[in-house]
């Protein structure tokens, strides 16, 4: 994955949910087209990149405590938008937006607490601007491709992954947790 900060130092960790197929293939192809060098897999960032002052194991233990109480939930992708402060082109999220905000709030605590550079706004990045890369053309292309996407535009967020920045924009998966639907207790 790559974060909004364009990667980061080695001591940089994040929590993401990878997007499943067929959305993943579409988003990855579009992103490679818009940003050929980008190695990111299609994902929703849950906890943006941050440095931690403890071991990754300790951070994950804390994160997992919170994540394990969470059932899977639906994330619906809506439309192509632009963050006006950074010119990042992204897919907005409808259903699931509030769940992601709540999850971010719950995870951004204790060992993993960090002041976010930007207000947390769940999304899927499609392209980050670079010098002279034609924002308008990229945006128009993303809008057109998204309008032609003929498969379901929502997915169940069922797995959460703890990742670490390895080098540049390259991230490696450290841990993952599969969310479980829990039966409602009956009387």
């Amino acid at each position: 994955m790559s974060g909004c900060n364009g990667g980061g130092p080695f001591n940089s960790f994040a929590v993401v949910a990878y997007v499943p197929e067929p959305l993943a293939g579409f988003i990855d192809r579009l992103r490679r087209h818009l940003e050929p060098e980008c190695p990111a897999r299609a994902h929703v960032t849950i906890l943006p990149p941050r440095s931690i002052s403890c071991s990754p194991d300790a951070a994950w233990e804390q994160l997992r405590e919170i994540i394990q109480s969470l059932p899977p939930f639906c994330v619906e992708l809506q439309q192509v938008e632009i963050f006006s402060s950074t010119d990042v082109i992204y897919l907005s999220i409808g259903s699931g937006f509030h769940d992601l905000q709540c999850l971010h709030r719950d995870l951004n605590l204790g060992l993993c607490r960090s002041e976010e550079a930007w207000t947390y706004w769940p999304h899927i990045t499609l392209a980050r601007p670079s010098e002279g890369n034609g924002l308008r053309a990229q945006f128009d292309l993303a809008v057109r491709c998204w309008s032609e996407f003929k498969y379901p535009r929502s997915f169940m967020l069922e797995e959460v992954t703890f990742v670490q920045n390895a080098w540049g924009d390259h991230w490696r998966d450290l841990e993952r947790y599969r969310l479980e639907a829990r039966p409602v207790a009956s009387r």
Partner: protein
Amino acid sequence: MAIYRVHRLKGHLRQPFRYAAHVSGAADLKPRDYSPAETVEAATPYAAYFAMRGAEAPLEPGDVLELETGELRIFKFVGFEEARWTQPEPKADTASHAQPEASAAQLPDAL
């Protein structure tokens, strides 16, 4: 192509808007916070944004685009979102003391 009327957020409100927490959903706007400005012809709100991007007065976060149908789109840091004008609520004391005026439909036929 559609014609969008630009409504500019008043200058003293730009800083508070910048630091206000982002919330999703349709934004409630007070007409008194805006000044009507130029119109722009464009296919979509983003097309209007790009058309104005290099202009003397580009669209800034907080500004609003109004379609001829009255639909509003507010330009935020996260892109365009739906918005609507809020109607000022009537003052409670004025409402309680006001004498209701009879409408033509309420007047007896004899009058």
